[in-house]
């Protein structure tokens, strides 16, 4: 919790960890001076994916790393779990699809909120969701 711009890793094992994930993302967005709307977009996406990691992935971790593509600054956030994986990613990304207690707009909604979004999953091995959000200049 020292406000530096090095990588941060948060374990996602319980519901309060979703709040901790949001707080960590907020802290990094503030360091990079993201706009209020972009900070809100990023934290909301983090909340959706962290919940996905907990509920569907059975828990995992989130890593935040500052990234740079001059002149742009951004944050890369990676969520990893070793859960059952997602057999049909396209279906899971569609709004309205849900197998648990969500509105089914977690993944698809989160993708719309951030600059870049990638999901890879191996059934039986786990799921990795990577999102990058660039600061608008």
């Amino acid at each position: 919790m020292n406000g530096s711009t090095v990588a941060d890793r948060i374990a996602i094992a319980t519901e309060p960890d979703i709040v901790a994930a949001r707080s960590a993302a907020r802290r990094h967005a503030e360091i990079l001076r993201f706009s209020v709307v972009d900070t809100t977009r990023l934290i909301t996406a983090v909340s959706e994916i962290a919940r996905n990691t907990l509920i569907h992935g059975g828990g995992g971790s989130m890593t935040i790393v500052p990234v740079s593509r001059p002149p742009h600054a951004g944050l890369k956030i990676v969520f990893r779990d070793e859960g059952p994986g997602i057999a049909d990613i396209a279906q899971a990304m569609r709004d309205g699809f849900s197998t648990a207690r969500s509105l089914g707009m977690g993944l698809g909604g989160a993708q719309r909120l951030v600059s870049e979004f990638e999901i890879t999953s191996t059934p039986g091995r786990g799921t990795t969701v990577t999102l990058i959000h660039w600061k608008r200049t």
Partner: protein
Amino acid sequence: MERIPILKIGHNLLVSIQVDMHDQLALNLQDDLANAIARHHARGVIIDITALDIVDSFIGRTLAAIAKVARIMDCRTVIVGMRPAVAITLVELGMTLPGIQTALDLEKGMQLLAAPAERHRAPRPAADERLHRR
């Protein structure tokens, strides 16, 4: 267990969310409000989300569920104080909170609940009708 306080003001209940809600806390609020509506014969619920810096799909769904439960208990719900960035993000996320009444601040929310329910359900004059009168 952690709880969000519910205040009674006249016939209405007021909830001001001041913490970053985890999911169970939101679900507790839903149960507590339904019980409080019955206990106090409340006619309205105001939920102040001024302090919330995000509303994700889970919190949004919980707010919608609270409003639905209140409605079938003959009680109206108004969400007040949503930040502009939260509103923008909710729409981009794909949640428009249908069926939820909102007001910009607490005062306007109280006015909304003080007015007869019918007034807010009546359609407003069409825009073109107003233009013709100019």
